């Protein structure tokens, strides 16, 4: 049997438990909404404007660098699994692989993109 079926069961149970808890809160809790209560919280004063705020492009850069290293890890995990059986050449390949990417990290850092301006 496919072992992922068990993971699926974990997912189902992992969803049932919080849904049940939230449902219990929904059933037993009072429901007396009023316009002031439904206002979004802004430290007690009336909300000003929309929730949309101008974001820094830095957020994009963080996600971008993460994406690149994430994909890198996808390549490196099979490499790490097999490493014990491979010779020193595989280690050298890995070092080349990582150092090429570190150049990118250094570039982003030198450009001041990793700082929170």
């Amino acid at each position: 049997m496919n072992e992922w079926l068990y993971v699926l069961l974990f997912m189902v149970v992992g969803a049932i438990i919080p849904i049940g808890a939230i449902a219990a809160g929904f059933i037993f809790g009072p429901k007396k909404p009023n316009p002031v209560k439904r206002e979004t919280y802004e430290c007690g004063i009336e909300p000003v404007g929309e929730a949309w705020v101008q974001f820094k492009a830095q957020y994009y850069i963080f996600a971008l660098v993460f994406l690149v290293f994430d994909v890198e890890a996808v390549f490196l995990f099979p490499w790490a699994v097999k490493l014990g059986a491979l010779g020193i050449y595989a280690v050298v390949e890995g070092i080349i692989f990582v150092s090429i990417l570190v150049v990118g990290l250094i570039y982003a850092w030198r450009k001041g993109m990793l700082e929170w301006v």
Partner: protein
Amino acid sequence: MIPLSWYLTFAAALFSIGLFGALSRRNMVAILLGVELMLNAVNVNLVAFWRYGDVAQMAGQVFAIIVFAVAAAEVAVGLALVISVYRRHNTVIAEELDLMKW
């Protein structure tokens, strides 16, 4: 056991949906979403061919991983382009970028 045709049909349908998205949406980010769907459809095909061919030959999975890398690069540069265009022209609608048209 699921026949190979099911996977290929599924991938073809996903690819067509992505194609529709890439051709018909006005927002550039949405166009990239469509491209993502198309790349995923290709990956489904690659992995399916790996499974239904010679399993010891990992070519299908290796190609799929390369496609992951390509998809990541495509999204990173594509969205950076969108952000750059938005800063210069204050729009993300593909049709409004008609500087090269006459």
